[in-house]
């Protein structure tokens, strides 16, 4: 039991970078993405923002290996992506929890699929469930939890497989503002702890600036990389210090200016 756990912890100390090279994707006649090239350094927190229809979720699914690009490729730590892999885990907008499975079973889903033995699964689950603040809810079912708690389960499920890269598809879009802010702060704490590369798709300007080191702005139909914003706000960030700062307000306004310019 100790062996696999230390293994898991070791891989966490080596985050991987993401390189997206000339990726295009069309669905029938609709061009979703057009020649996207961008790279994310290992251990960075990066946000992708853009109006609906800019293909940001499509891009995330291509990185996840769920969709194949029509042209171009994605490399993770220099290795081309050919499908889903243990180096990446995704967090979904609508949580995508199995309604028939308890919190524990949902959290261990990725480990179960990968054939981890039961004691390992449970040890890991206990750790990540505590980490996302759900200790004591192991045997609850998703419908017994609030939206915010459900997304904590989604996050714990992703953390349980200890990926180097966390792919997040508008993870906090389906929860109320109050919960969203709490989850954002918790995510920042987790990220500071676990040093993973995070690729976050969002449509919230505030969220992108608050969380990310870098914000990629995509233009709609077809999605093209329109601008990159460097977010040089100091870390650790918190609502009181970061959101209240003049620099934060300026960055959000800059971002708004760019989004308006694209219309």
């Amino acid at each position, binding site marked *: 039991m100790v062996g696999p756990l230390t293994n898991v912890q070791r891989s966490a100390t080596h985050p991987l970078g993401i390189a997206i090279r000339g990726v295009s994707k069309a669905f029938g006649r609709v061009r979703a993405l057009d020649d996207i090239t961008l790279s994310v350094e290992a251990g960075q927190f990066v946000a992708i923002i853009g109006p609906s229809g800019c293909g940001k979720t499509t891009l995330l699914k291509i990185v996840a290996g769920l969709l194949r690009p029509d042209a171009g490729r994605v490399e993770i730590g220099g290795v081309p992506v050919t499908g889903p892999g243990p180096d990446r885990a995704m967090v979904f907008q609508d949580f995508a929890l*199995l309604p028939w499975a308890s919190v524990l079973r949902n959290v261990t*889903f990725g480990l179960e*699929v*990968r054939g981890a033995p039961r004691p390992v699964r449970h040890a890991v689950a206990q750790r990540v469930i505590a980490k996302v603040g759900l200790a004591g809810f192991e045997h609850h079912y998703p419908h017994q939890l609030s939206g915010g708690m459900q997304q904590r389960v989604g996050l714990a499920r992703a953390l349980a497989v200890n990926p180097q890269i966390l792919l997040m598809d508008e993870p906090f879009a389906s929860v109320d503002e109050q919960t969203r802010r709490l989850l954002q702060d918790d995510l920042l704490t987790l990220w500071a702890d676990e040093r993973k590369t995070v690729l976050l798709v969002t449509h919230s300007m505030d969220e992108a600036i608050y969380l990310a080191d870098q914000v990629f702005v995509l233009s709609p139909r077809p999605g093209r990389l329109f601008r990159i914003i460097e977010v040089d706000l100091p870390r650790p960030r918190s609502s009181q210090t970061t959101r209240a700062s003049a620099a934060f307000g300026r960055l959000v306004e800059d971002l708004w200016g760019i989004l308006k310019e694209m219309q």
Partner: protein
Amino acid sequence: MNRVARGEGMADGLPTLGALVALMVAVEVVGRLDLSLFLPTFSAVARVWWQLLQAGPLLGAALKSLVAFGIGFGAAAAGGVVSGTVLGRFRLLGQVFDPFLNVMMSAPLVAFVPVLITVFGISDVVVIVTVFLFTFFVVVVNTRTGFEGTDRRLVEMAQSYGAGEVQLFLRVYLPSALPAIMVGLQLGVVNGVKGLVVGEMLLALVGLGEFLVRYANVFLITHLYAVIATIMAVALLASYAVQLVDRVLIRWK
């Protein structure tokens, strides 16, 4: 239906029990008014039922019917779940068989029983096949619907964690289809009992159906009701058996 079916505790059973008692009382009162030969009292039916039961032949017939039902229903349930799974997972096949399923779902299956009699002669096999026919299609259609209704997002989630085809089936498709499959089986029980009675009555020589025909022909109305009550008991028993399975398999609701 499901809340009662899943038995959330004894308290939930009380209204049902109350309704049953009320019905019995009502039947008794109406019977005592002596309005018609066709409306015997509850107590009279109960007395005849008890006599028939003690005399033996009714119990034997009920057992025979139950066995025929068990075989027909079991085969239809197994075959129906497997067929429905295949049709639900392979869209093209589902489309190919769609018109046939629709025809069989809406067809008056009673019409097939004379055909079965000519094929199998006057034997239990006819009853078994009739039960099968009455059960099979509703199980197929519900199973298929269950699989087709699997949430794409859950499939995608599982794929993102590296689940292959077998794991997708066992961990996403099957649990997701299970509630619909159980609904199919419950409807299958209802239809299957209809098939049982129809088959036996048309044969007029086996099981409870034989008694139905015999008593109806000689206007032994009270006896007739006693047999009908027995059939209802058989149906209820089968239905509860399925609900029990349902409750064990689907605890999360």
